[in-house]
């Protein structure tokens, strides 16, 4: 992966704050543990909007509860910043780890989705699709940072062992 595609390292902290906060609010909204009623009936422009028992709208104004849209966008923006901001020292070893983690995240996500397609139906599958919008990003972020941590802690242990020999 070419380093020029990565965001500056300084943005990583901002990304983590945004990603963590929006994930927290997103989970609360997902399970209906909170309701942001002040965002109900917000006027929005829709390329396409269709609900059961309501008239469809195409390229026009409609009203919608935008709390989930805002949280979803914040998760995406925060997640992308975390995922694609450079490490302090971004070298080809870390780029190698990035590539492996992205590949594994995509494959794992689709295997999990295939499993869900087989065993989840109706409204439950709708919930799966909501999670699936973000799951690849989460899998990659978790996988990449765990791999980095493990590699670093293993390395530190080897250094200590070398020093004590």
């Amino acid at each position, binding site marked *: 992966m070419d380093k020029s595609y990565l965001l500056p390292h300084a943005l990583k902290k901002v990304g983590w704050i945004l990603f963590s906060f929006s994930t927290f609010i997103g989970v609360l909204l997902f399970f209906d543990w909170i309701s942001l009623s002040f965002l109900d009936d917000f006027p929005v422009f829709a390329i396409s909007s269709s609900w059961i028992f309501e008239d469809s709208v195409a390229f026009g104004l409609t009203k919608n509860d935008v709390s989930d849209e805002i949280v979803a966008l914040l998760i995406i923006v925060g997640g992308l910043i975390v995922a694609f901001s450079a490490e302090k*020292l971004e*070298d*080809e*070893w*870390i780029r*190698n780890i990035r590539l492996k983690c992205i590949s594994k995240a995509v494959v794992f996500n689709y295997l999990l989705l295939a499993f869900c397609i087989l065993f989840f139906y109706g409204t439950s599958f709708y919930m799966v699709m909501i999670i699936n919008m973000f799951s690849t990003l989460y899998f990659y972020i978790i996988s990449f940072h765990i791999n980095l941590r493990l*590699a*670093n802690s293993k*390395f530190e242990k*080897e250094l200590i062992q070398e020093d004590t020999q």
Partner: protein
Amino acid sequence: MINNLKVERAIRKMTQEELAKQIGVSRQAINHIESGKFVPSTILALKLSVFFNKPVNEIFTLEPGD
């Protein structure tokens, strides 16, 4: 692929961190190259070759399975 990076580094009495700083990579990268867990790119291999003033194939050697 096998390498004698550790030997070359020891001849010059350098730590992994010192070598990493000279080359411009992380010390973990040097560690993983030495332990055979990571194959460096052509550019990195050439940088090491220039640094140690040795041809690349005196530092890195192909194994039968490669």
